[in-house]
């Protein structure tokens, strides 16, 4: 025990009592009060906070749904309908939860796009990126498990198709699939374990999110210019500046999600899931949830069972090594004139993959999926490593406050190799 530990002193004796035994108050003050945020962070930097809020909303609404849900093949569908019709505000809980899942993915996709475009995954934040990809993986697993629970046609056949992916593995595949299902088919054993796992995984996600946040707080947030904070002129305190900014983003998000929950609650769901599961009849067209569609498109683009499965999982696994594929030292695509366009192309391509993933895999759609697949992997394996080599990045500003100096008085900044004028170095915004 460190006898020389300096204990923070507060005015409130109760706080002092707690602080002496568990320095949690000074921790929160440091990490969420005085924590320096780059002052040029735009609204893209609010999506981490939004994702956390959404996760909490999903956990809370999920717990309340679980109070009325029955994980049994004979009763699951009816118990969901009972939630919709008889349970007080049950329809609201369920629409918050089902649309919350979609919005969670919208937010996380924007969060990932932000991290990729502004190079947040690069040194020294690689581990942070890896933890983020883990969260993304866990989210996909959780949403898939949850989609099975209403026990409609899409639930049943979605679960059947996805668990059959494992049967593609040579030799052990069939046995592994049976073990995962606890039956030879998707049945009551499967539903029960899917419910148990769907309940517990969000708490695992919450734990990884805690690590993810702790990791970003070590080196601080990246920013649109991709340069580190050099002095306190470059930053503002998290409280109140970023908290208020995040609150504004949260209000906008609240309006958006409420609009969908109250005026179009089934916009992002498949009508076939309102038909009870029937193991003898497959729906004419099985559609994954939109947020999994890009990966589904990759699966179907490959005319080989094992190959498709490997490429689909590979498409996610490749994200883990992105920090080492990108050789460029420049983080932000704002300063990478070539890579910027390839990056935009990647986003468009991902969107296109998602679009064709929702449509039948034939004709033009299949062709688009195959071209999209090539670009997806080409982007990571060829474009990302080599563009860093041949590209000449634009000149980076010397510091974050320098960016503002340039914006306000372009002549001074440009003329003196990025040195801000003495007048601009004064801290004018506080």
């Amino acid at each position, binding site marked *: 025990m460190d006898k020389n530990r300096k204990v923070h002193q507060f005015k409130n004796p109760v706080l002092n009592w707690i602080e002496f035994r568990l320095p949690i108050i000074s921790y929160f003050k440091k990490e969420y009060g005085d924590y320096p945020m780059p002052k040029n962070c735009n609204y893209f930097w609010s999506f981490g906070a939004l994702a956390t809020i959404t996760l909490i909303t999903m956990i809370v609404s999920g717990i*309340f749904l679980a*109070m009325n849900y029955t994980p049994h093949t004979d009763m699951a569908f009816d118990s969901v309908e*009972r939630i919709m019709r*008889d*349970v*007080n*505000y*049950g329809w*609201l809980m369920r629409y918050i939860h089902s649309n919350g899942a979609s919005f969670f993915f919208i937010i996380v996709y924007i969060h990932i796009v932000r991290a990729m475009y502004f190079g947040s995954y690069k040194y020294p934040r690689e581990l942070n990126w890896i933890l983020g990809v883990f969260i993304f993986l866990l989210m996909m697993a959780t949403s898939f498990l949850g989609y099975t629970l209403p026990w409609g046609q899409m639930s049943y056949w979605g679960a059947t198709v996805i668990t059959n992916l494992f049967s593609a593995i040579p030799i052990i595949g069939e046995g592994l699939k049976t073990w995962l299902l606890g039956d030879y088919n998707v049945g009551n054993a499967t539903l029960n374990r899917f419910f148990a796992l769907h309940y517990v995984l969000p708490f695992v996600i919450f734990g990884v999110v805690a690590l993810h946040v702790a990791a970003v707080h070590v080196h601080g947030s990246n920013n649109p210019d991709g340069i580190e904070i050099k002095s306190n002129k470059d930053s503002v305190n998290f409280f109140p500046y970023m908290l208020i900014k995040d609150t504004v983003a949260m209000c906008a998000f609240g309006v958006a999600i409420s609009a969908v929950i109250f005026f179009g609650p089934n916009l992002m769901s498949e009508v076939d899931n309102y038909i009870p599961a029937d193991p003898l009849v497959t729906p004419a067209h099985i559609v994954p949830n939109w947020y999994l569609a890009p990966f589904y498109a990759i699966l179907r683009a490959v005319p080989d069972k094992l190959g498709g499965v490997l490429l689909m999982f590979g498409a996610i696994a490749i994200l883990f090594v992105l920090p080492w594929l990108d050789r460029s030292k420049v983080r932000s695509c704002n300063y990478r004139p070539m890579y910027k366009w390839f990056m935009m192309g990647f986003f468009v391509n991902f969107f296109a993959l998602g679009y064709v993933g929702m449509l039948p895999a034939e004709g033009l759609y299949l062709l688009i999926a195959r071209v999209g697949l090539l670009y997806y992997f080409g982007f990571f394996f060829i474009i990302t490593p080599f563009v860093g080599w041949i590209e000449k990045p634009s000149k980076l500003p010397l510091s974050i406050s320098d960016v503002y100096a340039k914006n306000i008085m372009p002549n001074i900044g440009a003329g003196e190799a990025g040195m801000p004028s003495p007048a601009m170095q004064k801290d004018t915004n506080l």
Partner: protein
Amino acid sequence: MAKKPKKNKRRDFLQLSTVTLGAVGTAAFIWPFLKSMSPAEDTLAAGSTEVDISAIEEGQSITIKWRGKPVFIKKRTKEEIDAAKMVQASDLRDPQDDSDRVQKEEWLVLVGVCTHLGCVPLGQKVSDMKGEYDGWYCPCHGSHYDTSGRIRKGPAPKNLDIPPYAFLNDNTIKIG
């Protein structure tokens, strides 16, 4: 108090109104969650039961289930009615006249849950112990109830509850 500069007043107002709006919004968000835990519509719909009482003989008592709890319906004998009426309400732990506990003298309708800790008292069957007052006797902690279901002896604080009920006709009671 010294007059604050105008600028601070404005800031105070903004801060207060933001926090208030946030608190109201949070409360409005929490309400549906709390409300979802109270009985659902189908549970409430199951909250009333109609019972055919034409087959019950004098002195006989039946038990039916209402909201998951046992309800005793007893057709009392003349002696039992008289015994219940003779008692002075003021002598009782939970003072109540017999006439306040029945709609028709011969029909006694009770929630069969001991008011002590929720056990089901004995006394429905002929062979059951009926306690010292010839009504009901709770085997858990020894509470004695009389022929009006009133607590006479033992730890229970109150008389057996009377559920809301109505005679739809001479042969049918609607409970709930």
